[in-house]
């Protein structure tokens, strides 16, 4: 049995902290829910953080 955590009503788990996971987590908190963002690596950001610029406007992606 894993260590329990305090139970928060209305919480959602988001698996994966790339751009999709981050956006889902941000929107959920804005909509009034508690979010557990679970990311397998040591930082969030995913592949988008590796990109230099974004298509087609060439904006910085960080």
């Amino acid at each position, binding site marked *: 049995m894993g260590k329990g*955590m305090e139970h928060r009503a209305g919480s959602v788990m988001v698996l994966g902290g790339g751009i*999709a996971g981050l*956006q889902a987590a941000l929107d*959920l908190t804005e909509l009034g829910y508690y979010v557990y963002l679970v990311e397998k690596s040591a930082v969030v950001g995913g592949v988008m953080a590796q990109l*230099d610029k*974004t*298509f087609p406007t060439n904006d910085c992606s960080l």
Partner: protein
Amino acid sequence: MLTNADFLALAGKQGDFTARIRLRPRYIDTDSCTACGLCTQYCPRHHVDPYNEGLALTRPIHIDYAQAVPATYYIDPESCLYLQHDTCQICVPVCQSHAINFNQQPEELDLKVGAVILTPGFGRISGKTLAKFGYEAHPDVVTSIEFERMTSASGPFQGEVKCFSDGRHPHRLAFIQCVGSRDLGCDNGYCSSVCCMYAIKEALVVKEHDPDVEITIYYMDIRTQGKDFDKARERAEAMGIKFVRAKVAGVTPWKNRLQLTYSTLDGRHEFEPVDMVVLSVGLESPRDAAGIADITGIELNRYDFAKSDTLSPLTTRRAGVIVAGAFQGPKDIPESVTQASAAAGIAAGLLKKQRGQGIVHKSYPREKDIGDEVRIGVFTCHCGINISSVVDVHAVDDSVEDMEGVVYHTDSLYSCSQDAIETLKQTIIEHNLNRVVIAACSPRTHEPLFQETLKDAGLNPCLVEMVNIRNQCSWVHAAEPEAATDKSKDLVRMAVAKVRGMQPLPEQTVPVMPKALIVGGGIAGMTAALTLAGQGFDSVILEQGATLGGHLGLLNHTLSGSETAKYLKHLVAQVKKDGKIEVLTSARLVQIAGFIGNFASVVATGTGEAAKEHTVDHGVIILATGGHEHRPDGYLLDKSNKVVTQLELEKRLAGKARNRAPGSVVMIQCAGSRGDDLNYCSKVCCNHAVKNALQIKEINPDAQVIVLYRDMRTYGFAEDAYREARLKGVVFIPYDLDHKPEVYEKGRSLHVKFFDSILREETDLTPDLVALSVGIVPDGTDGLSKLLKAPLTDDRFFLEAHVKLRPVELPVDGMYVCGLAHTPKPVDETIAQAQAAAAKAAIPLVKGSVSVDPIVSHVDQDTCIGCGLCASLCPFAAIEMVKVGKKRKAHTIAASCKACGICSSHCPTFAISMGGFTNEQITAQIEAFGEVSEKETTEVS
């Protein structure tokens, strides 16, 4: 936020899941680590840096990049000397904050959650596939992600592109498309949907750096079907980037360079010497897809992506488990962001009853009275080396020493890092600062963070002024460090002068009317209304037609076989019975007033005697106005009964007529699109043509179907259907703009003349039927755009607030867009976008109030002469004329004011001032600029 975390198990059901998570140790205490970086400097072991795709070395103890979140270092156990060999531990005494803890153990947690959103992203194409193109065998063959790190200014080579073999700058560069995509050889039959775009982007970046580089992109079809994506391709062509339609057979060493072997469409084999090859690698399903599917019980498709249904694209077999992003199917950033918002909206609907119960509201200390004494703190940032490599940051910091009101000043490596923010807060409290100047980067990205810090320290957030010495000094004057330093000093001095006169501005909030107005009753509008209703919010749908349903009703089925008509009927019934949705048919919007949270719209319904107008009060508006089929000239459409559109063909094929699938059909793609009457790609027509071609073959297997196309854009999993059509004998022949197919009548027969680019000859056919893929035009966006003051693109679609990160919001607050009004798109994307628009629109409705930016205009009633000039000039109708006593006076409606300053600059009696930008402050700023100039002049003379 749980990083270094593995997902182990999921028990329970929707509303009551228990998720088992294992946290792997970081070996660094996140609360103590200040991200100073000393540990990395002392760590003796090398570690291949995965963040830089192995192109650089770091240490086992490191942080991926300076802006990483969480801003805490971590130890990679795979290469750490202590964790592998029980030696070293140099980092432990080095760390000043005693953050390193080798005793950390893996920890398991049980999370109680109501819903799960799966966004694990995508995986990498296998080395075996890459090896076919000489990867690993030759150092100058790189993947596009490696190349991305190479071109990045913050990457291991500071943006310099060099050959790994000998360090020379490549003169000839080749991009190979579809590596690991559209390739059954590696069991990836699908199109990855993003590679064409990033290849063009990377090519453009390189070309901008060095215009002499010759770049060729070898492709099968260029799939730039997204909004305004074709324009980037045209830009690339204009800059001299070559596009060659060819299949690359292999890459081999040739002298000290590489040689590309490829075959073109007409069967010729060609060789091309190049210096460097970039492989446009596709998106693979995530490596742990099978594991996730096992744990959650969701289904995967044949390529190990999450299986989903066209009409319910984000839900899975297991209730309460939702997917979004690349795991749902390969896709780009805007699509991922859209799906993420949609997934959030769906989850919110599932857990409606628990909304707001688990969250903690952030509280701030009471705002301090700032008193009369001006106490300014100036903080100058190095931004790593981004500023300090050009600007002498210490000199700038020293220059404020004796300035009036400055009681504290310092510099820092990264002012925005978590620890620096905490230090800033403590410094404000300790030195009782009441004005702050931050000399760093752009307020556009960082002002909210510093304003928040002021609030945390008990100050009004308007008492901070940012100076952008990065963009305006170190970046633009990179070649002149002294001048850049002088300019930084000038800007900082001016900011100090301005901030002296800064006064706290009250934060205002206005209540929100919890109701949405949805313009358009098609699939997008109805989906948005139902998503909002699912979260408990009322909406009013305005439908201009007599019934709900829109254009989806014209379709029979989707490419993946979903029955649209049945779904639509079900959706209409659901909308009608939902008590939270009011439907107004034959209705149109004639007027809209107000602002986010408080719109009042006048809606006209009925015609003739039944015509009436009524007002709808609402807090947000969603535009789902849809589009219709374009009818191009020049192809005998509407002139010959043998020429039909794909929609008309679909209807005919769904009918019962015996000859509904004639013996010979020619389909012409992009008829009237992509530079013809319409300047864009409509994204759906290729799929539509393939769908109809397959249907014809189904009914009449002997039928000859020829599809004339420019680029077949059957992106994503639709590629399977394209392949199936080819296997069933449908013939696909590309044409280019110089050889557009011609449709003409001679006597009673219909002719199609085209240049067969495979046989390389002019061909003239007399088919039984010509089907045109005609593209989509938006409905009524011109009028709405004027009414709403919401901008359109050149192609008359609504322009979103940010193409990547805010794809469903309009630049005007409280307005959202979805479906064809945004850009042409297939049904599944429309549904996800409608769900996303509804989720975004629900945010202000959930909050119940919106805060108004405190920087608004203010009219001094004593000085105002009531001329009304300001009210007539205000583009946002934010100034009203009111009676004060017996006199007419101007008054600002704060919630509508956008702080443009037009009123203030035109007021003949200087009665209007802008919060945070008063005349006195601006004058002080200008005078401060003159101060040193005068001094310098004196010194010179």
